[in-house]
């Protein structure tokens, strides 16, 4: 098995899966694009058929009526068998970690890091540099393991508090539901560190009492009506990738909590090629949406880092942002029409006009409402023809300051590529540690040569240099032109083009980093990322200050080893940028590592706010960042949101207590 990263130069069939998944990574032979996509499709179909076989009816309430609901969908819905997310998520996903059960990092018998499974381009590969990086960065040691509880102990889960009247009427609707412990635990958390840490230790807190799987908008209407009638607390659940404690059940909630899992509402209902829009059920996850649209030659271009698992409804409810927003826009730019079911009824606009002056945009009550007002069921989204050509790239800068100056200039000239991201020195080194084993002496020789050129010949300090990764998209000629423009700007800031591989690896890292956290947790290392947005003139200051604050807080809190405290600029805007911080440390010797972690993250957020950063760029507020809402949007602002909540949901049926 020889897996070098093929250059992704002139691939016509480039789709997101190509970056993510091995089965899509046949671009080595660029000319045979159609051939490879066929193979890919066949493989996927086979996979989902297998997944479908494995799916067993839940509690005897299989979705017979739901089928009717599905049947209401129109002809365009041809692909319902190929969905990624089954009702029983545990069949393919980890219950106490990130992502697919078959994919994880581990140290093999030789002590080498390896990524298992077959899904990703990194799957099955040896990553020789990871061990040393982990040991030197965190002082971690392979001898000191902190394994997770292997299986979920159902007896640790509190028996459900069921509202019998609600349950009875729910049964009569035929909408599938379950109060199986595994199903409930699966929907009781997102992916905050404390949530995963507790699961690994087998600690289970308050979990939903019931899970329901509506199959369509009308199912949701019924569920919400019943919930109102019987005063049941509803918590919408999409992809479960929240990192804001948004899915945590409020411990003070005494009513029966019903998790409304939208994952089965996953059809594209229609595609409007004249207006370039698609009408989609909100439970669809990113990879399915993109794959299905691709089949018709379209894409949304919305690619948040979590897109494998996160759902359209979740994006709307949290104001998500995608990697390629420079071309396609963020979710608020992509959405044309939203349908949401609230306790007061259904809210939607009467037409699909591209812009309206009809008072404050009611969509903006929905976007970012974080499940506190209702369930988003259907969304009309802009779509675009798939790009003809895609090209990765990277630029090495002598230091972070120069890199930021370059990004600023790119933003000033409004010539940002589909994606442009600047990693700091620590992250650059981290990226290097994740290089899989090189297949030939020639490649390693080339790497050595490149390194020599940059550090010795160009005089870059290996402890200061940083790298920007780029992704260009569009028609071939324009991409090449655009590429030249960006590289010319970079050169003015001392940037040297550093090849497509580096760029591509940078983006791949985004998808595997969540898996890496699980590896860290096996060896006393805990960490997380958080983000903000900030005006251009403060980017450097906020990066320096927040990183330094993290280091100082860790020291003050008794963390024995210096933490990894690193950042990257992941989005550029006219007036500022989005900055991502990664923070991880070795917690050996700490009695309550999660508490220490939370204190440090809290301090880091305080630092962000003091330095003019926002409370969140796209992760949302949830319950994790609620305490800062008032100072963020002012008391009047809070009052406005509160009054909307009071009108739409006076009995707090949507009682996840996020945001306010």
């Amino acid at each position: 098995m020889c897996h070098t990263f093929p250059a992704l130069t002139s691939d016509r069939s480039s789709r997101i899966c190509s970056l993510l998944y091995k089965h899509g990574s046949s671009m080595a032979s660029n000319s045979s694009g159609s051939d490879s996509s066929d193979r890919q499709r066949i493989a996927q179909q086979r996979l989902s058929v297998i997944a479908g076989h494995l799916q067993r009816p839940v509690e005897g309430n299989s979705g017979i009526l739901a089928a009717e609901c599905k049947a209401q969908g129109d002809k365009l819905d041809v692909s319902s068998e190929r969905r990624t997310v089954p009702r029983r998520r545990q069949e393919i996903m980890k219950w106490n970690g990130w992502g697919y059960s078959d994919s994880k990092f581990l140290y093999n018998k030789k002590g080498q890091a390896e990524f298992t499974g077959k899904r990703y381009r990194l799957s099955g590969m040896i990553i020789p540099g990871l061990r040393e990086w982990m040991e030197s960065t965190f002082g971690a040691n392979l001898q000191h393991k902190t394994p997770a509880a292997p299986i979920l102990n159902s007896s640790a889960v509190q028996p459900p508090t069921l509202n019998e009247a609600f349950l009875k009427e729910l049964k009569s609707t035929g909408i599938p539901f379950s109060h199986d412990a595994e199903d409930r635990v699966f929907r009781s958390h997102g992916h905050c560190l404390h949530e995963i840490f507790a699961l690994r230790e087998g600690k289970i807190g308050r979990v939903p009492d019931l899970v329901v799987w509506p199959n369509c908008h009308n199912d949701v209407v019924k569920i919400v009506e019943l919930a109102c009638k019987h005063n049941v607390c509803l918590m919408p659940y999409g992809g479960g990738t929240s990192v804001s404690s948004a899915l945590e059940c409020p411990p003070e909630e005494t009513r029966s909590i019903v998790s409304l899992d939208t994952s089965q509402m996953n059809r594209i209902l229609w595609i409007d090629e004249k207006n370039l829009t698609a009408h989609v059920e909100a439970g669809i996850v990113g990879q399915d949406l993109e794959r299905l649209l691709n089949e018709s030659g379209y894409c949304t271009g919305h690619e948040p880092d979590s897109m494998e698992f996160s759902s359209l409804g979740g994006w709307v409810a949290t104001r998500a942002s995608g990697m390629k927003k420079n071309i396609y826009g963020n979710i608020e730019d992509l959405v044309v029409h939203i349908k949401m079911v609230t306790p007061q009824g259904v809210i939607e606009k009467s037409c699909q006009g591209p812009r309206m002056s009809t008072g404050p945009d009611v969509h903006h009550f929905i976007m970012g409402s974080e499940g506190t007002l209702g369930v988003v069921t259907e969304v009309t989204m802009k779509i675009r023809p798939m790009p003809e050509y895609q090209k990765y790239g990277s630029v090495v800068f002598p230091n972070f300051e120069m890199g930021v100056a370059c990004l600023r200039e790119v933003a000033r000239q409004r010539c940002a590529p589909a994606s442009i991201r600047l990693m700091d020195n620590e992250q650059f080194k981290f990226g290097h540690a994740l290089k899989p084993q090189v297949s030939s002496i020639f490649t390693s020789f080339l790497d050595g040569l490149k390194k020599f050129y940059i550090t010795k010949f160009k005089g870059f300090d290996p402890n200061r240099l940083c790298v920007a990764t780029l992704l260009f998209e569009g028609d071939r000629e324009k991409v090449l032109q655009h590429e030249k423009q960006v590289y010319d700007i970079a050169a003015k800031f001392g940037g040297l083009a550093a090849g497509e591989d580096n760029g591509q690896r940078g983006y791949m890292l985004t998808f595997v980093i969540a898996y890496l956290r699980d590896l860290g947790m096996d060896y006393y290392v805990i960490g997380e990322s958080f983000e903000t947005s900030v005006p251009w003139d403060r980017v450097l200051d906020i990066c320096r200050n927040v990183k330094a604050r993290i280091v100082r807080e860790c020291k003050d809190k008794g963390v024995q080893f210096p933490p990894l405290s690193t950042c990257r600029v992941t989005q550029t805007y006219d007036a500022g940028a989005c900055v991502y911080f990664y923070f991880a440390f070795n917690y050996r010797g700490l009695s309550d590592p999660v508490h220490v972690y939370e204190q440090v993250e809290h301090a880091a957020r305080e630092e962000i706010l003091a330095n003019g950063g926002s409370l969140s760029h796209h992760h949302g507020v949830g319950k994790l960042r609620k305490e800062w809402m008032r100072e963020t949007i002012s008391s009047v602002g809070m009052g406005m949101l509160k009054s909307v909540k009071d009108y739409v949901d006076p009995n707090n049926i949507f009682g996840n207590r996020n945001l306010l």
Partner: protein
Amino acid sequence: TSVVVLVVLRTASLKDEEEFTDILEERRRTTDLGYALRTFNPQPYKGAPYSSTSDLKKAVLESQYLRYIIALETGSSVEKVRQEARGILEEMSHNLQLGFIRLMAYTVNKVFKRLFRSIYVNMEGLNMLQQAIQESPVILMPNHRSYVDFLIVSFILFTYDIPIPVIAAGIPLASMKVVGEILRRSGAFFIRRAIGSDKLYWAVLSEYVRTIVRTGCAPLEFYVEGFRSRTLKSVVPKLGMMDMVLEPYFKGEVFDITLVPISISYDRVVEESLLALELLGVPKPKESTTGLFKASRVLQEDYGCMHVNFGRPLSVRQLCEGKINRSEYNLIPRDLPQRPSTEIQDCVNWVAHLIVRTQEEGSLISPWSLMACLLLQAPITTLTEEGLQWHGLTEKTLWLRKLVLDFRGRLNWPAHTPDSDVMSSTVALHHSIVHHKAGRVCLVQDGDPASQDPLSPEEGVMRTAAAVLMLVSYRNQALHVFVRPGILATAIHITKSTQKDELFSFFCFLRDVFANEFIFIPGRASQDFDEACSLLQKCGAVHMSEQEVTVLETGLEVLSFLQKLLQPFLDSYQLIFRYLCENGAHVFTEKQFLPAVQNLATKLILSGDLHTFEVLSSDTQKNVLSALRRLEAVTKLRAGLYITQKELLGGSIPTRFPLC
């Protein structure tokens, strides 16, 4: 925060018994030239890229801030204003050059070896400074008691391979031929005395200072007291420079700033005789190079030892934690001038006071200061005529030594030397003020040998005053140890009360009135009171219960000493209050006020109704005026013109003020 302050005050003065090293000792053993040419290779601030003085100037002139201010200046063309700004910057800028540092070190070394027996430096403080300089921008904040201070810090840092500071100096120094230029090249930058409302000047200065702090290109040294204290007593800090220095932290442009209080104490101050004359209204000689050479006769004298005590580096971040909300700077571009909130202003004021208090705590009290305290409590005629009994003075001084130690003062009492030798060598060192013969100590009064005429009584008063004020200066060096218990002793003496709350309220009143005279950290009245109580209890002067403070028989000596120590201040303030109340004029000018008070005081001294000469000091008079303005009993109409607020001045303040 009070706990923080206490911790800061206590820890800033390091350990009680710390090691001071005589740095001249090694200098005397090696050649001056060899010393001046030693390798100098300090570890700079890690965040600072190298920047030359011209880079610095360029950064200032091109700053957004300055451009904004220049654009605001109306009346002349932008180019003209820019030219003016450039001129100001040229006049101001330092031009630090290693060659001149060597020249400076060479000269200073020669001079210091001549003037001083030893220069003691606490190496632990120096080590901490060395560390701190690498971590964040460092502000060196010495007290200012003598011209000799000016280069001592640079001299020490050069000796110990620590980056040389740039130093804020008064513009008169710059105009000295040759010397001005040497100072400039040794790192001095020059600030005009009366900047007033010259906006452009303020802008250039503040941007210059902020740029130095922001870039951390060199440690910045400045005197927070604003000028050389003529009374050798700490001066209430000036906030202009402090504001500029802290702003980069408030605006998040640096992660932290380190403040290093430095306490410089002299056995004998080189310009002692000039100080008293200046205070009595004889103008100080203009700084000039020829003047400097004339002063070279001072080189013939022995000035004993000098102590330079580097305090524990203080993190501005830690000091300000919980006191301010930096997000107030988030809504206006940081390059634009913004009036800080009262919260920020209070914090700056608090920090400045804290620094001066820390300087006080770190300074060393010489035996001579103790003797001065005691000599001043003897009737003036005893001092000028028959003299004070040597034996009694020795005994009392030793008693006072114990009290100082009880009060946690830092004493510079030579170890391993018989007390009698310490006493006589101290008196010998200060032969210009007192002489000791036939078992008695008398005040030396400068005769004017040129004048044949006998002195008028008024001239006699001034002559005595000159001698007394010299003594007062040395007493002032010890005052900070006694002020708080002294005020409590005064409160006990005047109110004759034992009720704690009554004493506290009077304590606060006196603390308030004397806030221009002594350094009190704002907002710490009750802590000051508690400290006073605990010290008096510790030395056995009072007994404390929950509600009462009872004077003990054994404490009468201490209480009477303390009360007498502060009596001159009470008398002086009383006299000036009376003058203002009884003087018919409602409106008065500073020009009238100062001589009028001096005349009145002279009269009262001659008539035997006033027992202190201190009211003759212009410093006292100015302090009273400032205090009255602060208490709003006097209002400033315009420069030099004041109006009394009769109802206040005639009412609450003087009536509450003790007539004793």
